[in-house]
């Protein structure tokens, strides 16, 4: 009875319900379509305009914040070098190595590194870390140190002009090179007042063209000397081409090196072995005979250089700095044309824009982008391969540390037992060789990865020389003491690759 009455309003309501549904569907569809359209438009815009110029950049623009206005994506990465992250064998945490591996207190005895040997932090801290280290505070250092811890170009140029080089664009390079000499000879405490920033954009980029460039006088001198030698450098083809020319002008990487070579040379400006030459404390890279550990040792032997006389053994020993560029030069990646930046500043994509990641860091924290571009395998496998190399290097280094320690104590004991200076000359020379080799691998920041076979070869030689020296010392009256290779223990959670988010 009531059916006709109740169905009439329902029939009237149904068209409204359909209408409402159509409206909602239509609106939702339109919004989704517009979102998609907007997304596509954004990607297209990104692809069209990578740089939006806000400020004019010149050679005098040292402050990275100014550059960041034109290049916000690169700047975002650059400032993230403040991040403190740890890998199994390295990272950017300020660990005091003298506490974690006390053997180095003995190895560096009599040298500033026995006071303070902290792990370096990220690029952002390079200047403040140097101003704070006890090595600089307790032992006055020359201004030469500033070369690689501050953005020094402006200061060098100003000092060069002060020293008489004309202040115009044509003499800019000349002024920088002159200023470099002046600042090297200054006390560090004075020189450091000339700079305000750690490594900055202008140190590696031409402000007009953004081309990657090298600016550090120490590197420009060093690479020219290397080019003029006949040491094999198959991984730097532009040097090979220059050698075939008439050599009337010295090798200039900014003119001759390919972009891919420059992506390593910019890092090689500072991540190298060096010494301060003469009274002027001129920062000098020991590349006259080549880039290998042996070549650098030969150079130091030729000029009769030692960093210090060991406090306990009396040996004239060398301190290896951080020969990453040299070690990389001996490895398979360099031979395959892989640059530092390929792994340490891996390419990344933001929307439709591809940039090189200016958050310079260990590739172990960025395995996918750093390695998988060439190595098509899972991150776990890649990490395992790296750790296999690093664990083996660490194991060899443990043994080498123990052997060098035993040698130092044996020479000291032989001296105490009445051995003459003449008799001690041979074991001391062996300590110089053994310690240099150990330090060359230890101070190099890759735990052998940059050139694994070379690292093993060097540590093998170190062990041999150390035990040879110990045998000689025992003959001179030292007791036989053999330390276990676990003078210090291996840090890091075993089997736990410290892979962090991308």
């Amino acid at each position, binding site marked *: 009875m009531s059916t006709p009455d109740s169905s009439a309003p329902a029939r009237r309501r149904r068209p409204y319900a359909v209408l409402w549904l159509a409206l909602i569907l239509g609106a939702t569809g*339109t919004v989704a*379509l517009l979102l998609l359209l907007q997304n596509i*438009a954004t990607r297209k815009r990104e692809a069209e305009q990578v740089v939006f110029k806000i400020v004019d950049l010149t050679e005098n623009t040292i402050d990275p914040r100014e550059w960041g206005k034109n290049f916000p994506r690169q700047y975002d990465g650059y400032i993230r070098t403040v991040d403190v992250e740890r890998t199994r064998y390295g990272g950017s945490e300020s660990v005091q190595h003298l506490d974690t591996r006390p053997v180095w207190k003995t190895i560096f005895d009599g040298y500033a590194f026995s006071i303070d040997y902290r792990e370096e932090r990220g690029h952002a801290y390079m200047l403040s870390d140097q101003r704070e280290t006890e090595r600089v505070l307790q032992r006055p250092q020359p201004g030469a140190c500033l070369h690689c811890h501050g953005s020094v170009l402006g200061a060098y140029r100003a000092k060069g002009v002060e020293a008489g080089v004309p202040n115009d664009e044509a003499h800019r390079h000349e002024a920088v090179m002159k200023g470099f000499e002046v600042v090297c000879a200054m006390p560090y405490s004075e020189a450091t007042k000339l700079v305000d920033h750690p490594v900055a954009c202008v140190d590696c980029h031409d402000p007009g063209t953004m081309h990657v460039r090298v600016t550090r006088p120490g590197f420009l001198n060093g690479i020219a000397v290397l080019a003029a030698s006949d040491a094999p450098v198959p991984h730097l083809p532009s040097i090979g081409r220059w050698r075939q020319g008439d050599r009337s002008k010295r090798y200039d990487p900014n003119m001759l090196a390919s972009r891919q070579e420059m992506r390593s040379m910019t890092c090689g400006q500072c991540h190298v072995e060096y010494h301060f030459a003469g009274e002027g404390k001129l920062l000098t890279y020991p590349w006259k005979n080549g880039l290998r550990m042996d070549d650098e040792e030969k150079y130091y032997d030729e000029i009769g250089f030692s960093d210090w006389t060991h406090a306990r053994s009396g040996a004239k020993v060398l301190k290896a700095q951080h020969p990453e560029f040299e070690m990389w030069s001996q490895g398979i990646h360099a031979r395959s044309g892989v640059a530092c930046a390929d792994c340490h500043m891996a390419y990344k994509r933001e929307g*439709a824009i*591809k940039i090189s990641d200016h958050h310079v860091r260990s590739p172990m924290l960025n395995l996918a982008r750093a390695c*998988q571009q060439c190595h098509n395998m899972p991150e776990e496998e890649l990490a395992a391969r790296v750790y296999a190399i690093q664990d083996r290097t660490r194991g060899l280094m443990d043994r080498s540390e123990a052997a060098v320690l035993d040698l130092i104590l044996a020479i000291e004991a032989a001296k105490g037992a009445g051995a003459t200076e003449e008799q001690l000359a041979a074991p001391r020379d062996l300590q110089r060789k053994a310690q240099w080799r150990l330090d060359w691998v230890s101070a190099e920041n890759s735990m052998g990865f940059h050139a694994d076979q070379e690292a093993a070869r060097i540590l093998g030689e170190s062990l041999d020389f150390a035990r040879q020296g110990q045998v000689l010392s025992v003959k001179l009256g030292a007791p036989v003491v053999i330390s276990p290779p676990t003078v210090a223990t291996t840090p890091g959670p075993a089997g736990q690759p410290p892979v962090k988010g991308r």
Partner: protein
Amino acid sequence: MGKFTTPAALLVALCVIAGALVGLSGFTFVYAKGGSYLSNDPAACNNCHIMRDQFDAWQKTSHHAYATCNDCHVPHDVLGKYMTKIDHGYRHSRGFTFQDFHEPIRITASSLSVVEHNCVRCHETAASEITMHALRPGDETNCVHCHAGAGHGASR
């Protein structure tokens, strides 16, 4: 209210809305160069710039003169070709829109199988001695495991 609820007016309104949607869709399709994806032009694969490395590297390889993207990356029967284009098109546009794919970009197992078949399609004579030994499923040879630079040379 009465006049506007007549079926004719409703229909007009609906048609306007539907037309707007169709127009908007069409515009988006053209703006996104949708038509190019139906072609064989290699430039289409680089529309969104994700494939820039692969595109650049392809231009420098031996295969550049003989094969374009589609020669290796889609099957050569009509149905297979467009089914693969639908599959790739869906995955790529979803990935690029939501920006949530693995980087560096990785080829899927099904895409690799398409490539493998296309290697053999051209190099059948040379490869017959090799492929005849791999008849069990899952036991296929993988040409590009060794010939990784054949289609895309060194990308830098």
